[in-house]
C-alpha cells in the first residue's frame, strides 16, 4: 500500500515534469518558426539591424502580397500551385499504383509472383538520389524537363506503399473475396466495391505521408526545372537566396517559407481528423 501511495505521488510530480519537458521542447522547436514569422512581418532594415525583433511588425500584408505576386524569381503563388500539383500527383499516383500492384500480388496467382514482389521490395533499398542520373537521362529523352509529368512520374512508383497495402490486404479474410465471388463480383468490382472502401483509413494515412513527401521534394525539381515558372516552392526558397553581391530580400524569403509550410499543415490537420474518425469507425 505504501509503495502504491509513493507511486501516486511520484506520478503527480512526474506529470508536471513531463509537461514542463514537453513545453520546453515545443518552445525550442517552435522558436525558429516564430523567428521566421517575425522576420516575414518586418522590413529588411529591422532584420539587418541587431538585435532582431522578437515581436511581429506591421508589414505582414505588404510582405506576403509582394511574395505571392512577384517573389524574387517567380511569384510564390505560381510556385505554390506547382508544388500542389506535384505533391497531389505524387501522393495520388503512388496510392493508385501501389493499391493496384498490391491487389495483383495478393489476389492473383501468376508466374513469378514472388519474384515481382521481391523486385518491388528491392527498390525500397535504392533512394532517389542513387538513381537520379539515369532517371534524369530518361526524363530528358522523353522531353519531360520543365513539365509536371517530369516532376511527378519518376517519383510515383512506391515500394513502401505497395508493401503496406499488401500487408493490409493479407489481413482481409479470404471468405470476403469468396463471398464477393459468389455474389458475382468480378475481380475489379471486388477491388472497387469492397477492398477500396475497407482500405480508406490506410489510404488517408498514406496520403498524409506521401503528400508531405511530394511537397518536400527538393533535389529532383531542382534538377529538372530550369524555367522559373516551373519551380516548386521548396526549391524556390533556395533559389531566392542571393548569389554574389545581390541583396537578400529576407522578409519576402521568410514569408515564402511560412507560406510553404501552410499546405502540409492543412493536410495533416484535415486528414488527421478524417483518419482518426476512420480508425474509430473500423474498430470492431
Amino acid at each position: 500500500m505504501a509503495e502504491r501511495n509513493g507511486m501516486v505521488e511520484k506520478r503527480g510530480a512526474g506529470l508536471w515534469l513531463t509537461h514542463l519537458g514537453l513545453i520546453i521542447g515545443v518552445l525550442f522547436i517552435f522558436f525558429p518558426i516564430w523567428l521566421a514569422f517575425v522576420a516575414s512581418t518586418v522590413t529588411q532594415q529591422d532584420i539587418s539591424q541587431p538585435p532582431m525583433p522578437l515581436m511581429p511588425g506591421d508589414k505582414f500584408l505588404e510582405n506576403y502580397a509582394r511574395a505571392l505576386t512577384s517573389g524574387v524569381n517567380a511569384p510564390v503563388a505560381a510556385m505554390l500551385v506547382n508544388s500542389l500539383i506535384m505533391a497531389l500527383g505524387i501522393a495520388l499516383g503512388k496510392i493508385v499504383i501501389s493499391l493496384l500492384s498490391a491487389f495483383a500480388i495478393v489476389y492473383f496467382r501468376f508466374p513469378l509472383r514472388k519474384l515481382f514482389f521481391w523486385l518491388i521490395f528491392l527498390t525500397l533499398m535504392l533512394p532517389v538520389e542513387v538513381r537520379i542520373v539515369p532517371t534524369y537521362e530518361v526524363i530528358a529523352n522523353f522531353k519531360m524537363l520543365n513539365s509536371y509529368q517530369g516532376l511527378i512520374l519518376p517519383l510515383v512508383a512506391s515500394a513502401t506503399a505497395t508493401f503496406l497495402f499488401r500487408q493490409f490486404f493479407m489481413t482481409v479474410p479470404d471468405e470476403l473475396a469468396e463471398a464477393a465471388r459468389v455474389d458475382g463480383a468480378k475481380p475489379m468490382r471486388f477491388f472497387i466495391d469492397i477492398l477500396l472502401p475497407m482500405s480508406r483509413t490506410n489510404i488517408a494515412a498514406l496520403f498524409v505521408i506521401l503528400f508531405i513527401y511530394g511537397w518536400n521534394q527538393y533535389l529532383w525539381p531542382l534538377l529538372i526545372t530550369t524555367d522559373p515558372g516551373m519551380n516548386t516552392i521548396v526549391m524556390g526558397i533556395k533559389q531566392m537566396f542571393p548569389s554574389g553581391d545581390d541583396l537578400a530580400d529576407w522578409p519576402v524569403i521568410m514569408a515564402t517559407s511560412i507560406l510553404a509550410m501552410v499546405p502540409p499543415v492543412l493536410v495533416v490537420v484535415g486528414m488527421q481528423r478524417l483518419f482518426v474518425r476512420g480508425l474509430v469507425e473500423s474498430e470492431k
Partner: protein
Amino acid sequence: MATVTLRNVRKSFGKTDVIHGVDLEIADGEFIVIVGPSGCGKSTLLRMVAGLETVTSGEVEIGGRLVNKVEPMDRDIAMVFQNYALYPHMTVFDNMAYGLKIAKVPKSEIEDRVATAAKLLQLEEYLKRRPRELSGGQRQRVAMGRAIVRKPAVFLFDEPLSNLDAKLRVQMRLEIKALQRELGVTALYVTHDQVEAMTLADRMVVMNGGVADQVGKPLDVYADPRTEFVAGFIGSPPTNFLDTALLPGLSTAPSLGIRPEHLQIEDQGRLTATVSFAEALGAETLIHCRVAGGRQVTVRQDALHHIPAEGESVQLNWADADAMFFDANGRRV
C-alpha cells in the same frame, strides 16, 4: 430448386489427395449434412460444389447441368460462411442487396426481396446498421439473408453455427431448418458437430479421410453404422469398443461396438468392469468404467437406477441384437 449430383469427385492439392472419389445424389429440396472431423475434406467438397475450388476429376452437376467449369455466380447457389463474410463497410441492406445489384436486378425488386428476407429473418429494424453493430446471431441472420435474396437453387452452409455460443446455436439450428422447409430449397450443410447433423439432416454424409464412409438418414446411420469410424463419430457419448479377445466365443471379428445406452449393469453379466466415476446429468447418468485390458467403457442409464460407487466392480450386459462387430479394416461384419 434443383438436384445436385457428384460423380466420383476427387481433389488433390499438388501431390496430396484430399478427396478420394465421392459419389452423391441430392434430391430436389433435400437437406444434406456433411459431417466429419476436421481435415476430412468436408469443407473442400462443399467448396467444389460452390465453385470456389476446382474439381481435380469427376463431375459436379447442379440441376442436371455440368458445372465443373462454371463460375460460382452462374451456378445458381448461395453460400453462408463460417465467419459470415459480411462486407464490413456496408449496411445490412447493402450486404444483402450487393449480389442483386451486380446482377442488375431493378431497384424496386431489390428493395422488395430484401424487405421480404428481412421480415423472414426479423432483421427489419437493423437494415441500416453495419455488421459490427450486430450480435453474432444477427450477423448470422444477415449472412442467411444474403443467401435468401438471391433465390438460389441450392444453399451451401459452411459450418455456419460454429462461431455462436451453445444456446444461440440451438436456436439458429431450428431457424435454419424451419427456413429451409419453408423455402423448399436444396441445402448442403457442412459441420463437425454430430448433433447438428442428426437434427438438421434429411440424409447425412459421414466423411472420413476424404471418403464418404456412409450416406443415409440420421437414425439409420445411428442405428446401423457401416464402419467403426461412423459408429464412433456419430452418437454422444461415443460408442464403446471392446476387444473381442476378452469375450471368447462371441465372434471372429476383432472389434465389438456397443452404444452406451445398450449397456446395462446387472447382477449377472458378460463382462466385469470397475467403475472409474459417474456423471449424474439429472435425467440420465453416465457411468465410466474400465474393463480388463484398460479400455474405457461408458454406460448410459436412467437416473432412477442405482449409481454404483467409484472403484466398485460391476457386471455389464447387453442384448445380442445391439452388438456391432467390425473387422480389422473397421468394416461392419
